C-alpha cells in the first residue's frame, strides 16, 4: 500500500473504529441501563425531592393568593392597609370553603406557636364580614391581626420558597427585624441532636476500630483453616436482622436482664445499673452491629500484606513492635480508612437501635426525621433535617478525602 493510500484511510479509520465498537458499546450501555434507571428513580430523584421539600413553601401562597399578592407591595414598616385586610377576608372565605384554614393555621403555628386556633377563629368570623372596613373588623376579632409581627411572618411565609425549615434545623430563625438569629434557648434542639449524632457515630467508629483491628489482624494471620471458622463467627450476626439483634440487646441490657444479674452475682455492683435506655447501651449495641463493617475492609487489606514486610523490617534490625508500627500498620491505613468511613456514615443514619435501646437524650437525627414525617406531618422540617444531615455527611466526606484520599481506600 502506498503512503498516500494510508493517509487517505486515516480519515475513515476513526469512523471505522467507532462502527466496529458500536455493538460492544451498546451492549455495555444495555447492561448498565437497568441499574442506572433504578438508582435514578429510587435514589437520586427522592434526594432531589427531599432537598426541594426542605425549601418548598406552598401553603400560604396557595391558600391566601390575594393576600400574598397584596403583601408583596407592603412596606413592612407599619401594619398593612385596608387593601391587604380586604384580600385577607376574601381569601379566608375561600379557604373556609376549601377547608384550607387548618392548613394555614398549621403553617403559621410553626413560626408563631399558638396562632392556629386564632386563624381558625378568623376563618369562621370572615364568613360573616360583608363590607369594609375589614381592617377594623379583624382587629376586633383578635388583637393578633393588629400586630406587625403577625404580618411580617405572614409575608415571609407567603413566598413559595422559604429558608425557615433549614434555619430551624440548625436552631436559627428570622427575627422580626429580618435578621437571622438563634432561636430561644428553650426551643433550641437540633444543634444538640446533630452534635449528639456526630458524637455517638464517632464513639461507635472508634470502638469498632479498637475491637476490630486486633481481630482482623488475627483473622488475617491465622492459617485459613482456623480463620474461616472465626470469620463465620464474625459474620454470623451479620446474617441476622438488625431488629432481632437490637431486641437481643434490649433483653441483655434491661435492668432485670442477664448482664445486671451477672454483675450482681460477681459482686461488681451493689444495685442494678441502668444499662438500657442509656448512652452506654446505645453505643454498645451499635458497636456490635457495626463491627463487621469496620472489620471486613481492614481484614481484606491485611490479607494482601505479605508477612515478608515485617520479616524484612525485623531482619533490618527493628524490634517486633517497631516493625509492626512503622511497617505493618501504615499499610493497613486504606482498610482502616474505608472501614471507619463506612461505619461512621452508617452510624449517622441509625434509627432503630437508638430508638429501642437509647433513652430520650440518646435519640439521633433520624429519630427526629421520622418524628416529623410520621407524627407531626411536617415534611418540610423532616426534609430540612435530612438535607442538613446529607450536607454534613458530604462535608465530612470531603474533609476525609482531603486527609486520607478516597482513591487510597480499599473496601476489599
Amino acid at each position, binding site marked *: 500500500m502506498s503512503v498516500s493510500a494510508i493517509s487517505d484511510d486515516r480519515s475513515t479509520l476513526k469512523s471505522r473504529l467507532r462502527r466496529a465498537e458500536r455493538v460492544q458499546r451498546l451492549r455495555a450501555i444495555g447492561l448498565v441501563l437497568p441499574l442506572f434507571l433504578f438508582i435514578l428513580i429510587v435514589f437520586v430523584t427522592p434526594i432531589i425531592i427531599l432537598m426541594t421539600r426542605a425549601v418548598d413553601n406552598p401553603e400560604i401562597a396557595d391558600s391566601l393568593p390575594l393576600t400574598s399578592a397584596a403583601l408583596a407591595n407592603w412596606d413592612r414598616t407599619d401594619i398593612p392597609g385596608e387593601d391587604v385586610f380586604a384580600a385577607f377576608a376574601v381569601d379566608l372565605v375561600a379557604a373556609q370553603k376549601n377547608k384550607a384554614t387548618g392548613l394555614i393555621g398549621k403553617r403559621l403555628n410553626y413560626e408563631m406557636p399558638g396562632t392556629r386556633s386564632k386563624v381558625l377563629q378568623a376563618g369562621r368570623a370572615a364568613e360573616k364580614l360583608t363590607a369594609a372596613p375589614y381592617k377594623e373588623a379583624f382587629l376586633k376579632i383578635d388583637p393578633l391581626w393588629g400586630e406587625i409581627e403577625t404580618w411580617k411572618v405572614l409575608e415571609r411565609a407567603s413566598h413559595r420558597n422559604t429558608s425557615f425549615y433549614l434555619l430551624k434545623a440548625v436552631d436559627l430563625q428570622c427575627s422580626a427585624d429580618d435578621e437571622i438569629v438563634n432561636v430561644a434557648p428553650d426551643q433550641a434542639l437540633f444543634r444538640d441532636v446533630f452534635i449528639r449524632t456526630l458524637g455517638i457515630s464517632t464513639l461507635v467508629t472508634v470502638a469498632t476500630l479498637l475491637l476490630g483491628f486486633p481481630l482482623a489482624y488475627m483473622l488475617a494471620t491465622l492459617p485459613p483453616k482456623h480463620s474461616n471458622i472465626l470469620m463465620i463467627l464474625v459474620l454470623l450476626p451479620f446474617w441476622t436482622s438488625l431488629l432481632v439483634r437490637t431486641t437481643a440487646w434490649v433483653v441483655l441490657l434491661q435492668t432485670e436482664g442477664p448482664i445486671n444479674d451477672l454483675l450482681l452475682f460477681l459482686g461488681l455492683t451493689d444495685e442494678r445499673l441502668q444499662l438500657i435506655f442509656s448512652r452506654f447501651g446505645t453505643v454498645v449495641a451499635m458497636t456490635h452491629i457495626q463491627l463487621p463493617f469496620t472489620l471486613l475492609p481492614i481484614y481484606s487489606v491485611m490479607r494482601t500484606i*505479605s508477612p*515478608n*514486610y515485617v*520479616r*524484612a*523490617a*525485623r*531482619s*533490618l*534490625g*527493628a*524490634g*517486633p513492635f*517497631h*516493625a509492626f508500627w*512503622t*511497617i505493618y500498620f*501504615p*499499610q493497613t491505613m486504606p482498610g482502616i480508612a474505608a472501614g471507619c468511613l463506612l461505619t461512621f456514615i452508617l452510624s449517622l443514619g441509625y434509627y432503630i437501635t437508638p430508638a429501642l435501646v437509647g433513652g430520650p437524650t440518646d435519640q439521633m437525627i433520624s429519630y427526629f426525621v421520622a418524628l416529623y414525617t410520621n407524627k407531626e406531618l411536617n415534611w418540610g422540617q423532616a426534609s430540612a433535617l435530612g438535607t442538613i444531615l446529607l450536607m454534613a455527611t458530604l462535608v465530612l466526606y470531603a474533609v476525609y478525602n482531603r486527609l486520607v484520599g478516597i482513591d487510597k481506600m480499599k473496601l476489599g
Partner: protein
Amino acid sequence: MGTTNDPFVTFSDVQKTYDGETLVVKNLNLRIEQGEFLTLLGPSGSGKTTTLMMLAGFEVPTHGRIEMGGVEINNVAPHKRNIGMVFQNYALFPHMTVEENLAFPLQVRKVAKDEIAKKVQRALDMVQMPQMSKRRPAQLSGGQQQRVALARALVFDPKLVLMDEPLGALDKQLREHMQIEIKHIHERLGVTVVYVTHDQSEALTMSDRVAVFNDGIIQQLAKPSDLYERPENSFVAQFIGENNRLSGKVASVNGKSCGVEIPNFGLVSAIPVSVQSVGSPTTLSLRPERVRINPESGAYANQFDAEVQELIYLGDHTRCRVSVLGNSNFIIKVANAEGVPSLTPGQMVRVGWKPEDCRALDAY
C-alpha cells in the same frame, strides 16, 4: 574466601519439623566460611528455604544448634542477628521512598542523620541507582526494585547476607545480568552470602560452593565444577545439568574401575562412586557432551551400537537422541564444527565414551 580456620556459621545436627510428624530438615550439618558465597540449591520443598529462615531467625530449629561467630543464635531474635536479607519479592516497604527504605535499618540503629544520608547514597551508587532516591517502590521496574532490595540488605554493613530466590521474578536476560552484578558486589565487599535458589545455572554461575538439598538432606556440598563433573549420587547428577542414565548391576569392582552389566545389552566399564558390592544395582551417569559418535574403533573402552532417533538443531550444537543399551532417551551433544558426520534419524551409528566419564552411582 575463608581467612580464618573457624567457620563463620555452623549448623550442628539441626532438625526442623512444622507438624511434629515429618522433618523438613533432617540432621543438617553445615559450615559456612567467612566471606564465602554459598548457595542452597534444591527443588521446592527440599528444606533449603527453611534452612535460610532458621538462619535469619524466623524459624526456630526443633533440634540442634546454629552458631554464628562462635555464639549460639538459636534463640536470638531476628532483629538482633545483624543479618541482611533480600526477599523473594523484595519486600520493599511500599509506603516509603527508596531513600527511606534504605535509611530504615540505619534509623533503627540510631545512626546520625548526616551519616545515614552518606551511607544511603553510597549504597545507591553501589547498585547504580543514584537518581532514584525519591521514588516509591511501585514506580520502579522489577530490576530496579531488586537493586534497591540488595542495597537495603547491605547498607548497614552486615557480616552475613541472606538471599531467598531474589532473581526469581526477573526475566532471563536481566536475571543473568544481575547474577554477575551480585557476584561482583560480593567480591568487592567480602561479605558472606547465603543464597537460596532452585535454578541450577544460577547456582553454578555465582557460588563458591553449592549445597544441593533434597528431601531435607544435603545431597552434596561442593564447588560448582565438582558438582557437575563429579556428582556423588544420582539425584545430584540428575538435578545439575543434563544427564544420561543407564541402570544395571555391578559385575565387578576393581579399585578405581568397575564393570556394570546392563541386562540383555552388555557390559559398561565405569568408575565406582557409590556402589556397594558385586551384584548390587547401580545407575550410570554420563554427561551428553562426553559421548562421541562413530569414534575410531578401540579409541574408547565403551563402544556400542546405537540408532539415531531424533535430531534437534540448536545453533552451536545439535542434540542427538539415540537409543543405546535399551535407553531410547540417550542424549548426545554434537558440536556443530567442521568434520562432524551428518546424521539422519533411523541411521545406525557407533557411540563411545571413556570409563572415567561414566560414574556408577546409587540405584535411583
